[in-house]
C-alpha cells in the first residue's frame, strides 16, 4: 500500500470535492456518510501502509513518494511529496482512525443542523490538511497542511458564525496561530539557507552529520517551537484554544483535542535531530514552557464550570506534558502521550458532546448532575476516560504520563515536581467534572424552565451512531497503554517498548538515554508515587464535590484564567487599538497631509502671487522696469564690470 500512499490524502480530497459539488443534493445524512467513508478509506490505506512498513527492515522503513514538483526555483526545489515512515504513519493512523469515529459521531451530533453538509465539507478538508501535515516530506508540505488545518479550524470554530462569540473565537484562533506560523516560516528560511532544502531528510541529515551549525540548529528549533506553541496552545499563545470551544463539539474532539493541536508536538518530534543539534538551552526552554503550561492550565481547569472549558484547559495542560517530554528528550513518550491523549480526550470531548446533545446544548456543569442515570453509556465511557487521564493504571494515560515524568526527573527535579503537582491537579479537576456531571443531584431539573422551547425537558441518551465511537474510544483508552509498556519486572519483554522500537528509525533516543540515571533506577517507585498522586487528586475532589467535606476552592482569579486572556484582550482593545488608530491617523494626517499640504501650499503661494497681479497698468510697468533693472544689473554689473 506504500505505493499508493497518495490515496491517504486523496480520499478525503475526493470526499471534500464530492461534498463541495453535490453537498446540497447529498443532504443529511448522505454527506456525512460520504465524508466518513472517505476517512475510513484513508484509514484502511494507512493500515495497509502500516503493515507494509512493518514488513520492511527497520532501516528501510521510509518511503518517499513525489507527487509533483511544487515550488522549483533554481536552488530551491520543493516537491509535493509524501513521506511514509513510522512517525507519519502513526500519526496518520490515529488521525484517520479517530477522525473516522468522530465523523460518525458528528453524523448524529449535527443532526438537524441546516448546514449539515457544509460541516462535513470542512471536516474532510480538515482531515486532508492534517494528513498533508503529517505525511509531508518536507517542511513546506507540512506547512501546507499546517495552515490548512488552521483554516479549517477557523471555519469550524466559527461554524455557527451568527454567534458573535463563535466568530470572534475563530478569528482569534487563526490570528494566534499565524503568530506561530511566523516562526515556522522563519525556521524554514533558516533551514533553507543553511542546508539548501526544506526537506526533513536534508535538515535532519545535516543535523545528525554535524553539518548544521549549533546556532542555526538552535534558531530553527526555537522558531519551530514558536510555531508549535501557537498550534499546540502553549504559553503564551494558548489562549485561542479555550475560546475554540465555541465550535461544535465533534470539532473540539477532533481538532482541538486529538489531532491538530498535537501537530506542534509532531513537528518537534519530526525535527528531533535538529533539536538535538541545538544549544542546550533550546530543549530546556521547550521543557520549561511545556511544564509551566501544564501547571498553569491545570490550575485554571480547576475552577471552570463549562464542561468543554474544563476539557479545553485540560488539553492545554496535557499538551504541556508532551512538550515537557519533547524538551527532556522523551520523544517516544511524547508521541505515546499524544496517542493515548488522543484516545481519552477525544472520548471525553465526544462524551461531553453527548451530554450537551442530551442536555439540549446546555454546557454549564452547575446545571448538570446525576446524568449517569439518564445516559449510562455516555457516563460509563466518560468515566473510563476520566480514569485514563487521571493516571490510574492500567488505563492508557497512566503509562504515557509515567514515562514522561520519568524522563523529567532524569532531566530536572524541579520540572518533575511541577509535573507531579500537575498530575494531582489533573486528577482533581477531572474527578470534579465527573462528579458534577454524572453524580450528585440532578440540578438540571430546577432549570428545566430555561429550556421551555423544547416542552418537557429531560436529558436523553444519544443515538447509537454517537455511542459507537464512544465505546470504541473507551476501549482504546483502556488498552492504549499497551503499545509502549515500560520495562517493569512483571511485564513480559516482548510487550515492552513496542512504540519505541517502531519509531526507532525516526526518534533516536529512547529509554536508553536515561539508563543509568537515578531516576531510571527508581522507576518502579516513581510509578507508585504517580499512582499516589492520582489517588490523592481523586480523593480530594470526591471529598469536596461528592461528599461536601470542604467548600470548593474555585477562586475568581482561576475561573478567569489568571486574567491572562482579559489582559491580552484589554491590551489589544486598548493601547494596541489606539496604536493602530494612531498609525491610521498618521497616515491621513501626516503622510497624506504632506501631499494635500503641498497642494494647498502651492495654492496659497499662488493666491499670494496673484495679488501681485493688481490690474493697475502702472504697477505692471513698474514690474517691467524692475525687470529691466534686474537684467541690466546682471549684464552691466555682473557680466560687464565684475
Amino acid at each position, binding site marked *: 500500500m506504500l505505493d499508493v500512499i497518495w490515496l491517504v490524502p486523496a480520499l478525503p480530497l475526493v470526499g471534500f470535492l464530492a461534498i463541495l459539488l453535490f453537498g446540497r443534493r447529498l443532504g443529511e445524512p448522505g454527506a456525512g456518510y460520504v465524508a466518513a467513508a472517505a476517512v475510513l478509506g484513508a484509514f484502511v490505506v494507512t493500515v495497509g501502509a502500516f503493515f507494509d512498513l512493518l514488513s520492511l527492515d527497520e532501516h528501510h522503513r521510509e518511503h518517499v513518494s513525489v507527487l509533483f514538483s511544487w515550488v522549483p526555483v533554481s536552488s530551491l526545489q520543493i516537491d509535493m511529496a509524501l513521506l511514509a515512515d513510522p512517525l507519519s504513519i502513526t500519526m496518520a493512523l490515529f488521525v484517520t482512525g479517530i477522525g473516522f469515529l468522530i465523523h460518525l459521531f458528528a453524523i448524529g451530533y449535527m443532526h438537524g443542523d441546516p448546514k449539515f453538509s457544509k460541516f462535513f465539507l470542512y471536516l474532510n478538508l480538515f482531515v486532508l490538511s492534517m494528513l498533508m501535515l503529517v505525511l509531508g516530506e518536507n517542511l513546506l508540505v507540512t506547512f501546507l497542511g499546517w495552515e490548512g488545518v488552521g483554516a479549517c479550524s477557523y471555519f469550524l470554530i466559527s461554524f455557527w458564525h451568527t454567534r458573535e462569540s463563535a466568530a470572534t473565537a475563530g478569528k482569534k484562533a487563526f490570528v494566534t496561530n499565524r503568530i506561530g506560523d511566523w516562526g515556522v516560516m522563519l525556521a524554514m528560511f533558516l533551514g533553507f539557507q543553511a542546508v539548501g532544502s526544506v526537506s526533513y531528510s536534508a535538515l535532519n541529515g545535516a543535523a545528525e552529520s554535524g553539518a548544521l551549525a549549533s546556532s542555526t540548529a538552535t534558531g530553527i528549533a526555537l522558531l519551530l517551537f514558536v510555531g508549535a506553541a501557537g498550534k499546540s496552545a502553549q504559553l503564551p499563545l494558548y489562549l485561542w484554544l479555550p475560546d475554540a470551544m465555541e465550535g461544535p463539539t465533534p470539532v473540539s474532539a477532533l481538532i482541538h483535542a486529538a489531532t491538530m493541536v498535537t501537530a506542534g508536538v509532531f513537528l518537534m518530534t519530526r525535527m528531533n535531530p535538529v533539536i538535538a543539534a541545538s544549544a542546550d538551552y533550546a530543549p530546556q526552554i521547550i521543557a520549561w514552557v511545556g511544564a509551566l503550561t501544564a501547571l498553569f492550565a491545570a490550575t485554571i481547569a480547576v475552577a471552570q464550570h463549562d464542561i468543554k472549558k474544563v476539557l479545553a484547559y485540560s488539553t492545554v495542560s496535557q499538551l504541556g506534558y508532551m512538550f515537557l517530554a519533547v524538551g527532556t528528550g522523551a520523544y517516544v513518550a511524547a508521541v505515546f502521550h499524544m496517542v493515548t491523549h488522543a484516545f481519552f480526550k477525544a472520548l471525553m470531548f465526544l462524551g461531553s458532546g453527548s451530554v450537551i446533545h442530551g442536555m439540549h446544548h446546555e454546557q454549564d456543569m452547575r446545571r448538570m448532575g446525576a446524568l449517569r442515570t439518564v445516559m449510562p453509556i455516555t457516563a460509563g465511557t466518560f468515566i473510563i476516560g476520566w480514569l485514563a487521564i487521571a493516571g490510574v493504571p492500567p488505563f492508557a494515560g497512566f503509562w504515557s504520563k509515567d514515562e514522561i515524568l520519568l524522563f523529567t526527573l532524569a532531566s530536572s527535579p524541579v520540572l518533575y515536581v511541577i509535573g507531579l503537582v500537575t498530575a494531582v491537579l489533573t486528577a482533581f479537576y477531572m474527578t470534579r467534572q465527573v462528579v458534577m456531571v454524572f453524580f450528585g443531584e440532578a440540578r438540571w431539573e430546577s432549570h428545566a424552565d430555561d429550556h421551555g422551547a423544547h416542552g418537557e425537558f429531560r436529558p436523553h441518551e444519544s443515538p447509537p451512531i454517537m455511542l459507537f465511537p464512544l465505546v470504541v474510544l473507551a476501549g482504546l483508552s483502556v488498552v492504549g497503554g499497551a503499545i509502549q509498556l515500560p520495562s517493569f519486572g512483571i511485564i513480559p519483554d516482548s510487550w515492552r517498548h513496542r512504540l519505541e522500537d517502531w519509531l526507532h528509525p525516526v526518534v533516536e533516543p529512547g529509554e536508553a538515554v536515561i539508563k543509568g540515571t537515578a531516576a531510571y533506577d527508581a522507576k518502579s517507585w516513581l510509578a507508585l508515587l504517580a499512582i499516589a498522586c492520582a489517588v490523592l487528586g481523586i480523593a480530594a475532589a470526591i471529598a469536596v464535590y461528592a461528599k461536601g467535606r470542604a467548600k470548593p476552592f474555585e477562586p475568581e482569579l482561576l475561573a478567569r484564567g489568571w486574567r491572562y486572556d482579559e489582559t491580552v484582550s484589554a491590551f489589544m482593545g486598548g493601547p494596541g487599538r489606539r496604536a493602530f488608530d494612531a498609525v491610521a491617523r498618521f497616515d491621513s494626517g501626516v503622510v497624506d497631509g504632506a501631499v494635500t499640504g503641498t497642494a494647498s501650499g502651492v495654492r496659497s503661494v499662488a493666491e499670494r502671487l496673484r495679488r501681485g497681479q493688481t490690474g493697475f497698468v502702472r*504697477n505692471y510697468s513698474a514690474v517691467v522696469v524692475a525687470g529691466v533693472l534686474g537684467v541690466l544689473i546682471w549684464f552691466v554689473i555682473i557680466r560687464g564690470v565684475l
Partner: protein
Amino acid sequence: MELIVFVLASAMVLSGAIGVVLFRNPVHAALGLVLTLFGVAVHFVSMEAHFLAAVQVIVYAGAIVVLFLFVIMLLGVDRAEDLTIEPLKLQRPVAIVLGAGVTVLVAGAVVRGADTLGRETNASAPGDSNIRALARSLYSDHVLAFELTSVLLIVAVAGTVVLTRRLKKSEG
C-alpha cells in the same frame, strides 16, 4: 560754442522731459514734449543730421504733438491731474528708484563703453551728402524696411477704422 549749444539744448530736452512728467495739465505736458523734441532737433543739427532734425520738427513737433493736443481738446481731458495724490502706495518712490536705477546703469554702460566707439570721424560727413547718403541707404540696404513701413501704415489706417467705427444701434 558747440558745448554751449549742447548744454542749452540738453537743458531744453531735460526740462521739457521733466515738464512732461510733472505738469499736472496734459496740455502743459504736451508743451513740455514740444520743448524736448525741439531740443533733440537742435542736437540733431549739431550732429549734422539735418534731415532728421527737419523731420523731427515737422513730423514730431508739428504733427504728432498737434495730434495730441487735438485729442486732448476733443475729449476734454484737459483737466488737471492731481499729482499730489497717489492712489497706489509705493508706486512713486519705486518708480523713481527704478527710473534712476535704469538711467544710472545705462549711463554707466555707455560711459564704460565710450572707448570702444573708435576714433571720432566727424569730418567725413558733409551736410549735403548726409541726405543723399540717407536716401541711398533707405532705398538700397533698407528698402525692405522702407516698404515695411507701408505695411505699418496699412495697419494704422485699418486700425483707426476699426477702432473708431460707429457702433450700430443694435449694439447699444
